[in-house]
């Protein structure tokens, strides 16, 4: 295994879950380290400097949310939250705190690997600090320098808000963005902005970009959390 394989730190107290994650990740070329508690995770994160952290929210010795906040205070390492279904508020708080994505238990290995790939790609882009002025996702092509959006070669006309919204999603393609994050991206810290605004612009974006808005292929909804551009 080459030394530049990414290192994944798993902070998870359940042994079967750790086994599953380790097996899946190692077989796909990742290096894996484990921490069994929030405390151990805190120490490991400083010593090992992992490339990505998988953080379980239900740890025995502390709130995973606190650990996420703490990590975010000194490192930009991508954090993927692992938590049970039905805890949408926890996921939203973790994402708003700066976690990069989440996985709802149970999840398949394909989903796990996809999320990790997206998170690593984004952290590399941030580290490089050079954003490609043209991004292509599916048939969608977005040119940030000319502010031109095309879908399968056809130019799509967007209003300024639609453009801002799409730009935020495209820049984080594959990653979930919470309502709050999107509102901040599009309207700044404007107090009056509500999730309802997002839905309105999302609906009009879908009308322009999706063949059938009820079967979106690009602009996906994460109920109770936010939106994700299929990446």
């Amino acid at each position, binding site marked *: 295994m080459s030394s530049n394989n990414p290192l994944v730190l798993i902070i998870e107290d359940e042994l079967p879950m750790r086994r599953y994650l380790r097996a899946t990740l190692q077989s796909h070329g990742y290096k894996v380290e484990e921490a069994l508690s929030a405390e151990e995770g805190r120490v490991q994160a400083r010593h090992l400097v992992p490339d990505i952290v998988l953080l379980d929210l239900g740890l025995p010795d502390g709130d995973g949310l606190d650990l996420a906040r703490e990590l975010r205070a000194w490192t930009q390492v991508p954090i993927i939250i692992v938590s049970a279904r039905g805890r949408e508020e926890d996921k939203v708080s973790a994402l708003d705190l700066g976690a990069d994505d989440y996985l709802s238990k149970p999840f398949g290995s394909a989903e796990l690997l996809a999320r990790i790939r997206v998170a690593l790609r984004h952290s590399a882009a941030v580290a490089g600090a050079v954003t490609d002025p043209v991004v292509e996702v599916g048939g969608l092509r977005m040119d940030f320098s000319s502010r031109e959006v095309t879908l399968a070669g056809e130019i799509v006309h967007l209003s300024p808000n639609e453009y801002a919204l799409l730009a935020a999603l495209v820049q984080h393609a594959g990653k979930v963005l919470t309502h709050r994050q999107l509102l901040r991206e599009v309207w700044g810290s404007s107090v009056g902005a509500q999730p309802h*605004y997002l839905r309105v612009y999302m609906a009009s974006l879908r009308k322009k970009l999706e063949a059938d808005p009820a079967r979106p292929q690009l602009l*996906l*909804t994460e*109920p109770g959390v936010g939106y994700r551009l299929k990446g």
Partner: protein
Amino acid sequence: MNADPASPSLPRPEVLLALLDGTVEASPLLREAAHLAAQSRGTWLAVHLDLARHSLYSRTQEAQLQKQLRLAEQLGAEVIQLEPGISASRQLLALARARQVTAIVLGHRGPSKWWQRLLGTLPDTLLDHAPELRVHLVPLVPERAPLRAWVPEYPGIAQMTSALLVVALATALDFVARPHVDLADLVMVYLLGITFVATRFGRMAALLTSLLCVAALDFCFIPPRFTFAVQDVRHLGTFGVMLGVGWIVANLAERIRAQARMALEREGHASALNRLGSVLAEGGSVEAIRDRVETYLRKELGMPVLVLLSNQHGLPGDADHARRLGPDEWAVAQWALQHAAPAGRGTAALPGARGLFLPMHGTEHPIGVLALFPEDRQAAVEPERQSLLTVLAAQISLALERSHLAEERTEARIHAEEEQLRNTLLSSVSHDLRTPLATITGATSNLLAPGPEADPGDQRMLLTTIHEEAGRLQRLVNNLLDLTKLESGQVKVHKEWVPLDEVVGSVLNRMEEQLAERRLELDLPEVWVPLDPVLFEQVLHNLLDNALKYSPAGSSLTLRAQQSEDHLLLLLSDQGPGIPQGEEERIFEKLYRGTWGPKTTGAGLGLAICRGIIQAHGGSIHACNAAAGGLEIRIALPIEGAPPELPPEGNL
């Protein structure tokens, strides 16, 4: 041998009858009767003579009798009043027969008087007519001051004046009539006057009038006239008759007046009870009855009234009423409850209190305390009022106890039903949990077993089974958690205006794999609906999941929506076997599984969750057979108001 069901050592339950008249301190008599009744696990009656029959009853005696009756009630007696005007012994005998009385308890006050020996006493009469009755005599000590003593009520100025006026009028009339009539007729006019005074002004005025009449007759008409001397001794007899008639009429009139007074009072009590009855008849919760009773008593008695309810530890000190009372009054109320005796103003216990506190006892437990706050010092003390209040308190206790018991019964029933459902759920769920676990355990043990390498195809098949069964477990656990949350009221509906296609889109996305081999026709208008996106997605997921399970592989599904003025109608139909008639509502019941159609796996929770969520949205969900065959689920969601306006883009 014939087994006697009753143990021979236990005496037959007695029915005892204790007779009260309020003339002496009778508590030993009452306690003896209660003791005898308790010994044989029998019952006892406290019978008293009607006060109105005894014109010479004084207020003291009346109060004493009331006290005795209250004590009798507390000792568990049924209080019965004998009717006035009918012989007491005859009534007693009739009552004894009717209630199958086995023994009579009487007070014995020392050697009988000469007239009693002559006329026979009540025990003698009773024993003569009902020799089967046993009679217990309890020695009673008469109080030093003879209670039967007649406490003279002195006539007032108005009564004396009226007596004088009547005598003057009668005399004047006699002067006019004298030349034409006999002396006897003149006497008649006086007697008329005496009767008039007796009926109008009472006994003392009547007695005074008869004396004055005799004097006036003697002075004005009996020769020698205009002196008090009497020539003919026979006229003394006339005077005697006049005085005698005056005495009898005066007493009769007094008795009628007393009866009228009692009747009026009883009528007042009866109508008060009647009104209370209608207040109590409305029923309801203990609190509702308490509030109504408070309002009623406040109006009825014209004073502030509180009904304090107790729990098993006494009066709760933190209740709103306790704070309104203040600690001192509250302590008095507590005393009344603990000692089961009236306390506070106008009673023997803690008379310094501002309020009068009457304990309310149910048949088993204390119910609470009736707290009254009379405006002036005397109002609450009158014995008539006291007795009325005691009766009202008894009625209120009964009603409160009834309501309390009803509440307990309802709670117990609900508890039992919940228990039943929990058991069903447990047995059904444990089966549904065990089956996939067993499959997974079996399949994995096969894969792990040492031995010849299995066929790769078989291995893959086993792994697929494990994956599917784990998914089934996952769904079951999720449904159970959802249902538990819904039922415990933990689920709060956060309605937001959402485009319908967004919710549908996110479900279809989530179910992409499952739906891959099916055709789903969509016909959705562009509409915004107020709903909870997370919960509603769950509904659509469960419904689609169900439709997939119950319809043949490869068949298509249809999801349509229609918008009306204030509703959104969502229709999901499949090409499955549909639903037998009469099952349309039952499929939404918890743990109900259709017995028709393909054998499927599920705990019967999915549709119950759907109904719970839709109802929490204020909507409705129904099932029917679609015209083209197959099952159709119809959801109606209310659309109230309009989505918020969006500011123009430039100003955002």
